[in-house]
């Protein structure tokens, strides 16, 4: 679909793109990401010949774009920019049907295109067609910007940080809409952003660039599980750093309700009632973990005066304090347990992981402790 072959771009002595080669398949949503100055926007603008490389070839559908008239090429490639770029002197309808009109489509066809496209983003033709861009909100304007790019049914749509200037809520809405439209119309989209959230949300393939080169080209999952460099890890930041390598110890609650095995039955019931829990951890005299005792079990089989020793449930799920938090999650979720007990290396209980402690710890990691 789109293929870069050893593309180099320089401005004077500054190398912007360094011998860049990659290939994008038809129908893929590809996100170019990287630090500013990494060459992502330059790469994008090479595709519709807004920038001419010094060396190398770019093929679109097997054809070298250097051999295609740039105007014809661009009319077949949608283009959306961060500044939106709707023409203020034209109505919404005129903006949307601009390219079809340039392609000499009939008036009726142009109207149909505007109607169909507006419907795609749930904007009514009657209400919006005759309005001017200045009468719309930023989010609505960029929706029209996207529609304008789709109007001539291009096979590729290029988007240069299209949602960068929108507020977070509108941005998410538009991300969802674009993803939906892309799936529905099966467009190949090349999308530039510096926002990893956006990339992870939208991309089939993420191309991470730095200093004019590709550092990693992978699916979001691959990149998350196996980032190729520290820089990428930094970008993935909250998505990976803290969550992937977390230990059970970081997720557990250390306030524990423990009783020794020689505790009497009635005492235990009283203790559990006071603490409003339905089970407690039982330890031996060396504080080693023995198991748990459930209140139902005590009520069913416990006899006043006896110890709880023979009521202990021993087949509980436990995890080692140094094991991956992920293992604890899985045990917790798969067995729909109220908690998993975390044990020290010497088998002494160190804490428990509940769904609440898990959610709280994840929240802390994602948004900081203040959350």
């Amino acid at each position, binding site marked *: 679909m789109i293929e870069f072959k050893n593309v180099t771009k320089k401005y004077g002595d500054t190398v912007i793109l360094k011998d860049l080669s990659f290939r994008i398949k038809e129908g893929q949503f590809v996100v170019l990401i990287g630090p500013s100055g990494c060459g992502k926007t330059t790469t994008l603008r090479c595709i519709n010949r807004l920038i001419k490389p010094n060396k190398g070839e770019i093929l679109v559908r097997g054809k070298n774009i250097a051999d295609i008239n*740039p*105007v014809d090429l661009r009319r077949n490639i949608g283009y959306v920019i961060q500044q939106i770029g709707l023409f*203020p002197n034209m109505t919404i309808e005129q903006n949307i049907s601009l390219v079809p009109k340039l392609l000499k489509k009939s008036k009726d066809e142009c109207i149909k295109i505007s109607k169909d496209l507006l419907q795609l983003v749930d904007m009514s033709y009657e209400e919006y067609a005759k309005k001017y861009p*200045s009468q719309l909100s930023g989010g609505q304007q960029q929706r029209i910007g996207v529609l304008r*790019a789709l109007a001539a049914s291009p096979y590729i749509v290029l988007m240069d940080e299209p949602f960068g200037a929108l507020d977070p809520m509108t941005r998410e809405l538009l991300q969802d809409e674009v993803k939906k439209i892309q799936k529905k119309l099966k467009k190949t989209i090349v999308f530039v952003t510096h926002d990893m959230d956006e990339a992870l949300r939208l991309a089939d393939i993420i191309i991470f660039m730095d200093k004019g080169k590709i550092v990693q080209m992978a699916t979001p999952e691959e990149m998350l599980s196996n980032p190729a460099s520290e820089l990428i890890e930094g970008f993935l930041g909250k998505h990976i750093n803290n969550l992937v390598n977390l230990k059970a110890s970081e997720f557990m609650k250390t306030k524990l309700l423990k009783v020794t095995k020689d505790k009497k039955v009635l005492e235990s019931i009283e203790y559990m009632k006071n603490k409003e829990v339905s089970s407690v951890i039982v330890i031996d005299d060396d504080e080693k973990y023995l198991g748990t005792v459930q209140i139902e079990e005590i009520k069913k089989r416990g006899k006043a005066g006896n110890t709880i020793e023979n009521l202990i449930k021993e087949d509980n799920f436990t995890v080692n304090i140094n094991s991956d938090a992920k293992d604890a999650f899985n045990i917790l979720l798969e067995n729909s347990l109220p908690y998993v007990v975390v044990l020290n290396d010497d088998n002494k209980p160190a804490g428990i992981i509940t769904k609440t402690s898990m959610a709280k710890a994840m929240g802390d990691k994602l948004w900081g402790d203040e959350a």
Partner: protein
Amino acid sequence: MNTIIDFINRYYKEILHYTSRHIYLVFVSVAIGIVIAVPLGILLSRHKKIAEPVIAGISAFQTIPGLVLLGFSMMIFGIGIKPAIIVLSLYSLLPILRNTYTGLIGVDASLKDAAKGIGMTKNEILFKVELPLSVSTIISGIRISTIYIISWATLAGLIGAGGLGDLIWIGLSTYSKDYILAGTIPAALLALIVSNLLELLQKLITPKGLKVKR
């Protein structure tokens, strides 16, 4: 006051004659100015490197006193309307040129980028985007030019081009207040009327999308 009214009653045909000649001088000069300055402004907006020196050159030219230039023009082209129109056209250039240039380069770069990126040709960008968005600035340049030229055209009487200048010069050489006023008042009225008309035109021609607000 009565004498002026008497004067107008007696000479209104002459006044009309000189006024229409004046309008003709101004109209032709400004029209020539537009025909040269607007395309030149468009050209300069595409070659910004040469734009500054060209505009600076024309500005410097503008500092030459009108009388001197008219004299030179008369020496080269003789007496009559032709040398006057040549000089007045030259004087009308600068405001139109400068406004065309600044209007065009003032069009938001992202709009030009979007226009190019969606596949508009240079001409399509010029006529569908750049000119509609700068037309208001260009007309305001034409307005400034026209007001200048209405007043400068009174000098053209000196080299036999006719117009309201004739009345003024007659008045000055014969110490006749009536003649002076008969020349200056129509010129002043003309400037006011034309200025207002062009302002109206500017409002009418500005694209609706630039005027509406949410």
